[in-house]
């Protein structure tokens, strides 16, 4: 087998050194009832060519050749080629978590740069080395807020990504803490402040909001923060579309930011792997979950980096850890770091402006469900037809339309959530507008 780098002669030689007669002797000590007495019922091994063929055939069963206007937490943005060039270098791809700092300065330095750029983007002072994804970052942020405030009740806006809220609910059920929701304003799509105010009290650990929210609407974080802070609760701001931070005012009023960086060079990949982040204020640094890279010096006095504050983490603290998280998303975070470096200050701005322009072109002449400003996604009511029927018309033109919202919001069962990015083509957008107006 091509991944096993030994000849049979070498195997015999090594067995002889071990004083064993055959490879089977290596596990002869296992009790009989624990041994598998037959070969695994799997097909024989395949060549590279056959494997490539298998996956190309599966790819052909997917949406080959379709344009798409889906967003809803996963966005199709162009990936500069350097992102894969860098992430394919074996020194990054095949290294481990950088516990041995002397031979992991490459990874450590890139994570330090990542943490810095996440702070610059979000207006926060501390960011961790990444979380699994945005959805799992949300319960981690809630747990962090509960540790900080000593309270066990969380309020989450219904306009936060529905699947993120489901993950939050799973965590709460098992950790035996409480999650309550508050609504959105039916006209603007923004937070319903009166509903928030009526549900906030001195037992609330945090208020979780998303901006742009699941409907693409830009929230007014200042008002939400003021209400939360009045009762001593924290404001957790969630984002799913990182490109929006190239243009939108960063959430300076938030205490914790939990987000998803998929937009930064990560392919949609049918839902993962992505990279989440948690960023916060300096004063909460000891409550942040996951890995952190810090600045230090080596014995010769040179600048060096290492994992730090690991006394928060499971491998040291065991049952007293801030989180059980072990893996971060270093390689994905590296791609995002390269992406941020390629686009830089001017590029991220221009990229965000293009997204704004494309989405507003797509929305041109189309009725929108909500009237508040939006970034690159918006909700459209379908008059006289079901959202599925509109999508069916588009599918015939090799276009995947929007996400029908009924599965998440029964009251929006006649609505589609549509997204345009810098990759959306005018001709395709014209077809979508036509279908929506028909």
């Amino acid at each position: 087998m091509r991944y096993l780098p030994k000849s049979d002669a070498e195997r015999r030689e090594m067995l002889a050194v071990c004083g064993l007669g055959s490879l089977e002797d290596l596990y002869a000590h296992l009790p009989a009832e624990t041994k598998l007495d037959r070969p695994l019922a799997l097909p024989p091994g395949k060549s590279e060519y056959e494997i490539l063929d298998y996956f190309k055939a599966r790819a052909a069963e997917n949406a080959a050749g379709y344009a798409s206007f889906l967003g809803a937490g996963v966005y199709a943005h162009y990936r500069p080629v350097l992102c894969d060039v860098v992430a394919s270098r074996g020194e990054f791809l095949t290294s481990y978590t950088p516990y041995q700092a002397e031979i992991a300065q490459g990874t450590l330095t890139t994570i330090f740069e990542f943490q810095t750029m996440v702070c610059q983007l979000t207006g926060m002072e501390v960011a961790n080395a990444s979380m699994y994804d945005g959805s799992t970052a949300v319960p981690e942020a809630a747990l962090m807020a509960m540790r900080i405030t000593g309270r066990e009740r969380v309020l989450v806006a219904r306009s936060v990504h529905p699947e993120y809220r489901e993950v939050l609910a799973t965590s709460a059920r098992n950790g035996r803490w409480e999650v309550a929701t508050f609504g959105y304003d039916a006209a603007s799509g923004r937070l319903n402040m009166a509903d928030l105010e009526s549900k906030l009290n001195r037992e609330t650990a945090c208020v979780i909001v998303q901006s742009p929210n699941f409907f693409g609407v830009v929230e007014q974080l200042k008002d939400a923060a003021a209400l939360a802070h009045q009762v001593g609760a924290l404001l957790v701001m969630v984002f799913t579309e990182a490109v929006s931070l190239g243009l939108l005012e960063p959430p300076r009023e938030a205490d914790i930011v939990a987000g998803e960086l998929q937009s930064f060079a990560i392919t949609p990949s049918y839902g993962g792997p992505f990279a989440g982040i948690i960023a916060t204020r300096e004063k909460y640094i000891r409550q942040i979950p996951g890995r952190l890279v810090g600045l230090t010096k080596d014995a010769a006095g040179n600048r060096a980096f290492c994992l730090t504050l690991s006394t928060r983490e499971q491998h040291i603290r065991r049952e007293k850890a801030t989180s059980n998280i072990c893996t971060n998303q270093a390689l994905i975070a590296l791609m995002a770091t390269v992406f941020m470096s390629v686009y830089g200050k001017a590029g991220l701005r221009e990229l965000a402006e293009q997204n704004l322009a494309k989405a507003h072109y797509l929305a041109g002449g189309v009725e929108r469900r909500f009237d508040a400003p939006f970034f690159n996604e918006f909700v459209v009511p379908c008059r006289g037809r079901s959202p599925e029927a509109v999508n069916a018309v588009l599918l015939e033109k090799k276009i995947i339309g929007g996400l029908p919202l009924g599965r998440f919001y029964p009251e929006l069962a006649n609505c589609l959530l549509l997204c345009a990015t810098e990759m959306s083509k005018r001709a395709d957008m014209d077809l979508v507008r036509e279908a929506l107006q028909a």
Partner: protein
Amino acid sequence: MIRKSRSHITQNESLLFELSSPGKLGYQLPALDVPAVDPAATLGADNVRAGIEGFPEVSEVETLRHFSRLSTWNYGIDLGLFPLGSCTMKYNPRINEVVARIDDLAWAHPYQPESLSQGAMEIFAALECSLCEIFGMDAVTLQPAAGAHGEYTGIMLIRAWLAAQGDPRQVVLVPDSAHGTNPATAVIAGYEVRNIRSNEQGMVDLTALESSLDDTVAALMVTNPNTLGVFDENIAKVCALMHSKGAQVYMDGANMNALVGLSRPGDFGIDVLHSNLHKTFSTPHGGGGPGAGAVGVRSHLEPFLPHPRVRKDPQGAWTWDYDRPRSIGRVKAFYGNFGVIVRALAYILAHGSAGLRNATLDALLNANYIRKLLEPHYQIAYPAPSMHECVFSDARQAARGVRTGDIAKRLIDYGFHPYTVSFPLIVHGAMMIEPTETEPKQELDLFCDALISIAHEIETDPQVVLHAPHLTRTSRVDEVAAARKPVVRWKPA
């Protein structure tokens, strides 16, 4: 004598922020094919930020050089043996990277219609099915994002199953040899942790287990082979004992690389296990992730698995089943780390049935070969037979004032990544070595030569070991200073 390495020039490199100067560009966007809009007018002036303060402005060439230079400061499997115990740092086949980047797999959107996702769903089903066979389990979920996330899912499944019978119970038992994630997971899933000591062979102490086992105990979290690389010969008895008290057995599959094709957890009584696809199934560690934590269960736990589940509809097409009233709910948005799942399936397809078993045998052979060559020089922690990894202690070297961490740093000078240092906690001064099956004999010989040479250095010149590494561009890093006053982002001087 150092045979594997000698020093060479590496480039110095500044941080991106220090390379930055106003007006430099590394990108070009196509001209807009739609009218531009005014951000302030569209979004409200209050909502629009000024430029991102401090964000880098670097050219394309500098970006490539920057990351290329940084990469040369790293060690990876591509450069040689990476013998971290319980981490299974094996070769990452490059065909896996190629197939994961095929356009209509990589660009598949999780909400695209099921009729246009059949290939992706088939891949989920194929990997679930292969892992069921390898684990000896009845069902597998691929939703968890990583190993610890899989542990969390597993414990939640146990809680849900017990709760359905009226009492979720309060306590999870964790052997003292366990990974730190195990107790951390149990607490996050709402349980209290009770530690169980190991016996003199490093296995679960049946007497200690029995005396800790009452009707408040929900589960035992066991690792088999355990973190000493020892297969627990009482495992079937342990499982039977737990079941007799209505409790469940959770297995941490971090060491699954020792078992594939030889022994199946489902067959010896395990109720639920997770397996890190980035360990046993060869997907790259990438400097710390992404991973994926497949979780296998026996049939009684299947109704509780996270939703949605992939299944065939009556017409024979794949569909996502959300109608799962007993499910613990979602543990992650969408369906799982698909890109990692593609790579793991490619690995299983490449090996096939016989190849997977042969890989396990070679992993066992490599660990036992290392053990045999090093045993005259280092103290083996427990006499029980080794599976895929072997654990020594620094007892002999400590007598000369040299500890496991020092030996590890000296190994770097010899051209190797260190083994796992000071873990498992039950071995004082642990040196935990897992070579995996993808190491040639020549590399193993060089590694053993290096550790034997270091043992001699400790006898003759311990200082050279105590101050290692000497040949790296970065000498010993001051971790204490980093934690004292943490600086975790760059600020202009």
